[in-house]
Each structure stands twice: as structure tokens, then as C-alpha cells.
């Protein structure tokens, strides 16, 4: 292994497995995450994303395999100096103000007080929270709290920031503000790893994506590559069809792949214009013609059934 290869991969996983009792939730995955990119881990609930992240952060013992972070085993305490974590669940300290949350957290890293307070002011500015610095965290909105969690994750000036569903539950304005902040981190040379349910978020932020389901990697690549590889370029989503037979007769004569979710049928094809023309001549149909997106890749790979949280 050459030293440049070692340096360029921030995370390396070789045959990583996780068992909860008899149940295998991560089934021997192999991947590298190069430095300086935003890497997205996508998958439905129960796919193993969060477990993969928790193992990476030393929060869950690795059952088998080789899992390293900056060339150290993931459970090594020293790796935490170089990593910032934004967990899914809000664990800001409710006993402290916004600024104190940053200072107290810096103290866990052993950052000297003067450095910490200087950094805290910079991070408050970064998170647009300077005017709220003295407020208790309970007084903040959901978006502000999430921004504070991101700021807190940066207090040790990490090389890698790991975010577990960073915008879940936020309104569109708050999400866009967070996306903008995350993009600015990338331009500062930080490596980002994020899990998300939102394909829009993955498309906005991620340079590379890994789709996970049932503990296995289903696909990996840039958003553009994944779309080109796994789905046809155009999609027509149609509602108002009477059933499978109705859908089949509508597509009769076209080279088309069909999928059905709830009351909507998706028709994937190279060129959808003839189908759109046919739909326009029928009454009672609602249809949307659009280019294929990551959402289609995701649904094609992981299936369209509803699933329960595991």
C-alpha cells in the first residue's frame, strides 16, 4: 500500500460486519471514503446506515472486519480529535446557553479556554447565532438548534464531519441554510459523511453516494453515474389508472419499465414523448413528465414497498 493511498482515504472498511445477537445488520461491507468529498450513505429505515455510522464513531463495537478512520481502528479515542459529530438526536446541553454549549464541548477536547472562546465566536457567526449567544438552547427553533449542533461539531476544527440525517424535520428555509453551510465546509477542505432519507439533499450535497439496504451495498457512484447506470433517463408518473391491466394497455407498444407505488404508476423510458402524447389524449389521468432523479435510483434499488422501522 503506498502512502498516498493511505492518506487519501479517510475511512476504510474491509469486510465490516455487525451482529445484534443472531441478526446480521451489516453484512461484510467494503468501501473507502476519499478525503475532501461529501459522501452520502442512503438507504431505507433499517438498512444499516446508522449502525455503520455508530461503528465508525466508536459508539458500537465492530463485530468483524477491518474498519479504520485516519488509519486508526475506529474505536481508538484519538480519532475523535479529528472528527466532528452531528447526531440525529438533539443532545445539546439544556442546562447551558448557546455559547456555553460550545465552550463546554470544547473542554471535552481539552482545548484551552482562550482558543475555545475565540473559536466559539467564529462558530456562532458561521451558524448565524451570534445574536442568540446568551440564550438558553430551549429557546431556539429547530433549525437554530441543528445549526448549533453543527457548530458544536466544528469546535475541535475536525478534518472529518459526520452528520446523521442533518435536516430531518426542518422546514425548507432551514434546510437550505444548512445545506449552504455544509457546502461551505466542503470548500474549506473538510470531508463530510452524511446519511439521509432525502434524495434532494443527497443530490444537492454529495459528490459520491453509497446506497445501502439490508446491510449490503447496492450501488456506489456519483449521483449522475447512479442515475445513468440504474434508471432510464425519463420518467412519467401517472395517477388515475384503474389497475395493472390499465397500466399495461397504456404502455402498449413502448419500450418501458413500469413500477407501481400506492396509486401512482412510474413509467421509465429512453424517450417519454409518445407516452405523454397518449396520456394527454385520455381523460381522468394526472401525469408528470420529468427527468430521472436519485429518488428513482433509490426506489428502483431498494424496492417500493413501505417498510417498518427495524
Amino acid at each position, binding site marked *: 500500500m503506498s502512502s498516498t493511498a493511505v492518506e487519501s482515504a479517510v475511512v476504510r472498511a474491509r469486510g465490516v460486519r455487525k451482529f445484534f445477537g443472531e441478526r446480521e445488520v451489516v453484512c461484510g461491507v467494503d468501501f473507502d471514503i476519499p478525503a475532501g468529498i461529501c459522501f452520502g450513505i442512503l438507504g431505507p429505515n433499517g438498512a444499516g446506515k446508522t449502525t455503520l455510522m455508530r461503528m465508525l464513531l466508536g459508539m458500537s463495537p465492530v463485530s468483524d472486519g477491518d474498519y479504520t478512520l485516519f488509519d486508526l481502528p475506529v474505536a481508538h479515542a484519538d480519532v475523535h480529535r479529528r472528527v466532528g*459529530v452531528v447526531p440525529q438526536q438533539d443532545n445539546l446541553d439544556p442546562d*447551558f446557553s448557546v455559547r456555553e454549549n460550545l465552550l463546554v464541548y470544547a473542554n*471535552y477536547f481539552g482545548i484551552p479556554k482562550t482558543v475555545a472562546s475565540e473559536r466559539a465566536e467564529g462558530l456562532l457567526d458561521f451558524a448565524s447565532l451570534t445574536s442568540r449567544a446568551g440564550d438558553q438552547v430551549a429557546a431556539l427553533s429547530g433549525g437554530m438548534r441543528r445549526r448549533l449542533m453543527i457548530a458544536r461539531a466544528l469546535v475541535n476544527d475536525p478534518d472529518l464531519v459526520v452528520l446523521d440525517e442533518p435536516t430531518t424535520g426542518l422546514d425548507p428555509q432551514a434546510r437550505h441554510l444548512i445545506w449552504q453551510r455544509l457546502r461551505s465546509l466542503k470548500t474549506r477542505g473538510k470531508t463530510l459523511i452524511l446519511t439521509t432519507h432525502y434524495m434532494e439533499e443527497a443530490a444537492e450535497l454529495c459528490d459520491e453516494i453509497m446506497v445501502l439496504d439490508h446491510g449490503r451495498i447496492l450501488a456506489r457512484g456519483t449521483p449522475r453515474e447512479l442515475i445513468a447506470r440504474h434508471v432510464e433517463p425519463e420518467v412519467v408518473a401517472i395517477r388515475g389508472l384503474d389497475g395493472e391491466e390499465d397500466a399495461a394497455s397504456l404502455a402498449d407498444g413502448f419500450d418501458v419499465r413500469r413500477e407501481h407505488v400506492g396509486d401512482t404508476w412510474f413509467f421509465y423510458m429512453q424517450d417519454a414523448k409518445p407516452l405523454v402524447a397518449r396520456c394527454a389524449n385520455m381523460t381522468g389521468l394526472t401525469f408528470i413528465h420529468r427527468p430521472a432523479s436519485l429518488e428513482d435510483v433509490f426506489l428502483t434499488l431498494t424496492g417500493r414497498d413501505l417498510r417498518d422501522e427495524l
Partner: protein
Amino acid sequence: MMRAFALTPSHVLAVWQRNFLVWKKLAFASLLGNFGDPFLYLLGLGYGLGMFIGNMGGIPYMAFLASGILCSSAMNTATFEGLYSAFTRMRHQGTWEGMLATPVRIQEVVAGELVWAATKSLISGAAILVVAGILGGIQQWETAILALPAIFLIGLAFAGPALVICALAPSYDFFLYYFTLAVTPMFLFCGVFYPIDTLPQFAQLLAQVLPLTHAVDLVRPLLTQLPLVHPWLHVAVLAAYAVAGFALAAHLAGRRLLR
């Protein structure tokens, strides 16, 4: 289990400082709560009951009771902190999980909580010592000052087991068992209110393995004219509870949080 003792002092201190900073914000209210209860016991029982009892174990009842209450309040303070407060931070606020995303490891979180709980025992103990002095519960001021490190040790001895229960507890309700089965029996049968040699033989033997008995036997002679017997035995028993409780709590907390 051995991993429990892989401790970086600065990490333990950072956990302690977090709790201290929170306490500082509400220090006055907290202090008032810490010593309100023991103050009432001393006043009500020490004066009221003391009037009828006169001397107990060869010393005035107020002096007998003050040393006992000092120990039992150290027990209560550390136990409450190790159960309710630590559980809130572990289970509801995610404070421990937040710390685990930094270089601080689980055994250091538990150690920080342990030392903090003992610190609270020390703070409230110092306040009670002053009150006991004012009410005439202290006969020997020269050795009374040694009660402070003893109270800190007593705090550690009760924080250890409390953190074990905390790491095992499914909810706050669970703590009631610990109070009914451990804390209240010790409060009543370990020599806080009367000498344990009045108890039946088997109860005396049982009391000898409980930490509060050793706490009282260590502290009472420091505040009164009673002779100090086997001080290092008492110190060793209290230290054993602290260390064993800590190691088990660190192990269990790791198993609970690092799944």
C-alpha cells in the same frame, strides 16, 4: 472490566467541570435543599428527642445524631446525584452520548460523575458541619476538619453503587427499589440514630458489611470524644465500595450505550 481504569485525568475533570458549571448556576437553591433536610432532623430529633434521651453511647444525643446525620446526608446526596441526575444526563438529555463523540471515553464519563457526586456530598457535608457546630453537635473541632475528606470518601462509596443502579435502570421508577431495599434500611439500621450494638446479633453482622456503618464509625469519633477504632478498616471498606461500584458501573454503562 480492566478498561474501566484506563482513565485520562483531564477527561474526567472535563466531565466534572460540566456538572460543576451547571451546579454553580443554581448553587444557592441547591445548597438550601442539601441542608434543609438534615437541619430539620438535627433540630427536631436532636433537640426534641435529645431532651428525653440525654446521653447516648456516652455522649450527648445532639453530638451522637449530628455525626450520624452528616454521614446519612453524604449518602443521600451522592445517591440522588448518581441515580436521578446521572440518569437524566445519560438517558434523557443525551449528555453522555455527546461526550462519547469527543475523546472522552465511557469509563471517564462514569468516573467524572462519580467524583462529582462525591463533591456534592462534600459541599452539603461542609454546610451541615457548620450547622451541627452551631447547634452544639461537635465536641472536637481539631479532628472535625478531618471529617471533610472522610465525607468525600463516603460520597464516592455511595456514588459507585448508585451509578451501577443508574446504568441498569429502565426508568426513574426503578430507583424506588434501591431506596426501599438499600438506602432506607441503612439510614435506620447503621448507627445513625442509635448504636448498632442494641440490634440482634445477625443484624449487627449484616450492618458490618454495609458502607454506612463504616461511614458512621469513621466520622463519629472525629467529631466527638468517642475513641476512633480501626480507622483504616473503615476507609478500606468505603474505598472498596467506591472502586467496585465504579468498575461495575463503567462496565454496565459501556454495555448499555455502546451497543
